[in-house]
């Protein structure tokens, strides 16, 4: 299988780069039911090139996640807009029956726990908040016109659309979660329903960044890109689960959020109050709780048998606890 895939990839890369391409290393980095990632060291007419191949794995992709063809187009738009991303190198169509694309393979660290805890990333942590603001400002300035497939293009407000989606997803679990219902009720009553509509990354947080000694070198994992309220992306990296146990540092376990917010405001002219962010942080926690419970359902339904996914169903109690904590802080 790997041999056939490698041969198919060599043929496709050869036409992509306009000359004979030889694949020298070909290793599976991650594989789930819906997606594979392969490290590919390619010898191309213009020299050696470290590439990353993203390929479907046959399983159902998450509702609301982009197809690989769409993800590649978003990556191209981000690259053109000057966002730090792995350079997209080409959509390959179907590779042995499943769609795939290639992009540059960046070097560095992505694992959130290490970035937050290890001393060798102290310098990177110091510059990350400003860099995150810079990249988010660039992402939110991407022209959405050529990305007509992005979810959220309908007429309704992106915030209301998000709440409706979460309500439906929660109902589909067929398990009562009063704490999450209480969170949704609070959000329906207090969330500002109007706001600008921009290209949102959808999963902008520590853990989805490539980080080197100089800090952020690439924003990864674009499959949840959509049109939405910029405050969704601003608050998502503050969700407690993405602080990797460095809880007091509310921005991703690396800093307090003020510098990030101020820098974003200076770059975009959009100032956001911490109170507003708290509401969007609550929204983020409800979203992640529903997401974790949904992941456990992937295991329970047999769609993707995995002890990791199974345990998420129980660990979602941590996020429910956080939702209630934020509600209490916000005066119920």
């Amino acid at each position, binding site marked *: 299988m790997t041999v056939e895939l490698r041969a198919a990839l060599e043929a496709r890369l050869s036409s992509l780069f306009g000359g004979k391409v030889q694949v020298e290393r070909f290793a599976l980095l*991650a594989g789930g039911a819906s997606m594979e990632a392969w490290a590919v060291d390619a010898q191309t007419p213009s020299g050696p090139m470290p590439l990353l191949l993203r390929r479907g794995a046959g399983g159902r992709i998450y509702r609301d996640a982009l197809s690989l063809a769409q993800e590649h187009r978003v990556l191209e738009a981000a690259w053109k807009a000057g966002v730090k991303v792995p350079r997209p190198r080409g959509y390959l169509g179907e590779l042995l029956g499943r769609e795939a694309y290639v992009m540059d393979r960046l070097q560095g660290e992505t694992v959130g726990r290490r970035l937050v805890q290890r001393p060798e990333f102290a310098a990177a942590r110091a510059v990350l908040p400003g860099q995150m603001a810079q990249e988010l400002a660039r992402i939110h300035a991407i022209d959405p016109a050529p990305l007509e497939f992005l979810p959220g293009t309908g007429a309704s407000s992106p915030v209301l659309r998000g709440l409706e989606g979460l309500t439906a997803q929660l109902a589909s679990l067929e398990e*009562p979660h009063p704490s999450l219902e*209480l969170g949704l009720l609070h959000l329906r009553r207090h969330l500002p329903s109007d706001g600008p509509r921009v290209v949102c990354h959808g999963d902008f947080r520590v853990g989805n960044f490539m980080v080197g000694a100089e800090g952020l070198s690439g924003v990864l994992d674009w499959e949840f890109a959509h049109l939405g309220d910029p405050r969704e992306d601003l608050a998502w990296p503050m969700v407690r689960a993405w602080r990797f146990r460095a809880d007091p540092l509310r921005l991703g376990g690396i800093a307090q959020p003020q510098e990030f917010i101020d820098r974003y405001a200076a770059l975009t002219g959009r100032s956001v109050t911490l109170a507003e962010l708290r509401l969007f942080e609550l929204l983020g926690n409800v979203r992640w709780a529903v997401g974790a419970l949904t992941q456990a359902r992937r295991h329970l339904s047999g769609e993707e048998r995995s002890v*990791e996914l199974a345990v998420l169903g129980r*660990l979602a*109690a941590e996020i429910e*606890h956080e939702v*209630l904590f934020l*509600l*209490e802080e916000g005066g119920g």
Partner: protein
Amino acid sequence: MQNRPTAAELAEAVRSFLEEEIGPGLQDARLRFRALVAANALSILGRDLLLGEELLREEVDVLSGLLGVPGDAPSLNEELCRRIRRGDPPAGTLSALRRIAELKLRIASPRYLEGRR
């Protein structure tokens, strides 16, 4: 009645086997991580076997006190969800739910609960 080990003792035996004997010998980092996750799943199972019934009774007490009606845990939780969706949560809902969240965490993630106290 079954011979010992009890169900919880069996879960603990498999947990320590995974964590202490299998995990450290695994070369593949992703597999090693999943072995730890599996060991954690068995810890949850062990606590559920020991504490589950007692904590569930406590949850039922909290919920029937809040709603003023008797019932089992699923039906009381459903009823509370209905009230909240109607925009009409009973007074005291937030603190009752916080107490229940702590009960759940005593099984699912006691270390997280300790960190938050």
